[in-house]
């Protein structure tokens, strides 16, 4: 047996995992190109990018650390309100707003993580749901601050870093969102391929073994929950900066559910699931919605059932894989 080679191969393979795949280059180049090539779809693309980032933050939790959440909109909405209020009261410079929103949402995540980490999946689902519902009620009741159900308007959006205007410039604001997303994707990729990221995967894969090789499970999970909350807050802030109103729908159950659905449709645990899922979801919503605006929910529901029936971690791709697998079934099963 040629052991030397296999060893070398597996080391190379390990390094390759964290390297950028050519498809990723293509993706980001295409995304950059769309700034110039698809002006008519900038609004939709901006939404897709923001949802992608939001889904990415959930992927960090679910796909890498195995924490289920049905209330992730709590951090998204909190970030959005913080960004809006900060812009109204201090400065309308967007990057500063993002940072403030990210920190605020992260702190909220840190504070609530202690509640979330206990118990089983089901308990987590319910607790995260409960946190989001409470946040929603708070935003609603503090209408003197948040505008409540009427929404919060009048948020100034100054040029980014004082030089790059995005207010009412769809192309610029799309470019801005895209750049922020790229930076955060880059950071997320570093994180998930770091020793810290691997330890999360270890906790997800087998918490018992993880703690018995000396990983402090809870500390790591608190850390990733904080990071994810912070990401969600930044996504919320981005939406606040690119939409003229922040309203209660930023924080509602529907949003928490939608982001989970998008992520699952796209697949968890490879960072791009959220992109794929949100793109499919929003494009479907837009185009099926144009054909049958009232009943597109039926088809989304149908898609979910089918995905749940046939797909696993990789979302829609599992279905393609299955079909492909069935087509070349002459090969023996492993």
């Amino acid at each position, binding site marked *: 047996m040629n052991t030397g080679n296999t060893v070398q191969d597996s080391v190379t393979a390990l390094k390759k995992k964290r390297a950028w795949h050519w498809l990723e280059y293509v993706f980001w180049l295409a995304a950059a190109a769309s700034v110039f090539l698809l002006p008519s779809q900038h609004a939709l693309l901006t939404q897709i990018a923001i949802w992608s980032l939001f889904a990415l933050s959930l992927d960090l939790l679910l796909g890498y650390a195995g924490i289920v959440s049905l209330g992730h909109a709590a951090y998204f909405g909190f970030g959005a309100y913080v960004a809006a209020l900060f812009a109204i009261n201090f400065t309308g410079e967007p990057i500063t707003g993002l940072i403030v929103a990210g920190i605020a949402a992260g702190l909220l995540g840190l504070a609530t993580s202690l509640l979330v980490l*206990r118990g089983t999946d089901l*308990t987590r689902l*319910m607790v995260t749901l409960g946190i989001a519902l409470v946040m929603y009620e708070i935003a609603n009741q503090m209408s003197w601050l948040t505008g409540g159900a009427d929404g919060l308007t009048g948020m100034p959006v100054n040029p980014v870093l004082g030089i790059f205007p995005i207010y009412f410039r769809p192309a610029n604001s799309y470019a801005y969102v895209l750049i922020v997303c790229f930076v955060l994707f880059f950071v997320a990729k570093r994180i998930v391929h770091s020793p810290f990221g691997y330890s999360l995967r270890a906790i997800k894969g087998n918490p018992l073994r993880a703690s018995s090789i000396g990983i402090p499970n809870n500390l790591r999970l608190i850390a990733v929950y904080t990071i994810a909350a912070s990401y969600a807050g930044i996504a919320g802030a981005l939406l606040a900066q690119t939409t003229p109103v922040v309203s209660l729908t930023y924080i509602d159950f529907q949003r928490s*559910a939608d982001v989970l659905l998008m992520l699952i449709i796209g697949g968890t645990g490879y960072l791009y699931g959220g992109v794929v899922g949100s793109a499919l979801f929003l494009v479907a919503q837009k185009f099926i919605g144009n054909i049958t605006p*009232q009943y597109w929910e*039926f088809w*989304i529901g149908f898609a*979910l059932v089918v995905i*749940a029936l046939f797909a696993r971690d990789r979302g829609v791709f599992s279905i393609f894989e299955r079909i492909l697998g069935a087509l070349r079934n002459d090969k023996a099963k492993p």
Partner: protein
Amino acid sequence: MLTILFDGIAYGMLLFVIACGLAVTLGLMNFVNLAHGAFAMLGGYCAYVLVNVYGVPFFASLPVAFMFAAMIGLLAERTLYVHFYNRSHLEQVLFTIGLVFMTSAVVDYFLGSQQRFINLPAYLQGRFDFFGVGIGKYRLLIILVCALILIVLQLILGYTRFGSRLRAAVDDQRIARGLGINVNWVFALTFAVGCGLAGLGGALGAEILSLEPHFPLKFMIYFLIVVSVGGTSSITGPFLASILLGIGDVAGKYYAPRYGGFVIYTIMIVVLVLRPQGLFARGTSK
């Protein structure tokens, strides 16, 4: 004061009848069935169509609503749910949310998105005074019907062979199978009854909760709270939780209306944080 108590009990009973099926699915089969409210809605709409469109007497519509929801439940269990028993909770959540979307859209398509109310016979409307305590007739009916259901459930569970086989299956599935109990069938039947009860609850509750296509999502949270606070190992747990929730909600809103919106959620979080394992003793993570 006593009126508040009475209202709370009626409200809680209603929650219980709808949610007890969910406790069964969650506790017995370790299945997160977010679509449970859809069966309640279907039962409600079934009664609505019967009474308002075909003029069937209200009381006759209740058993039909039960059967209708139960049959659909059984069908869904045998064809779809059965594929998800060994899947993760997350996949179950996805699948059942998908079902909710589909049922909501279908109901909207056939019956419209307006709120619907079942035409009640005149003798069920209004209220009477009982030693100074105002008693709503319909609420009294709810309490009576639900109490009857509770008693029948207890009798079936406690005194029939099916009941003991069911309890055996809940206690220890593996051993029950090994001793000749067809656990799959017991569960399917139980699932159907749970759906039927939800349907019956939906029909009974239409007057108070109101029927609309978004019913399953709107009340999902309440059902989940009942189950998560009450636990799933018996029907007494969810029953007590329902009554507690009903009275707590009603009383909380009466005495502190400003904070009514927070109370339930906060209680749920606190309970779950303090006793996550105790409440979901059977629902260990997969």
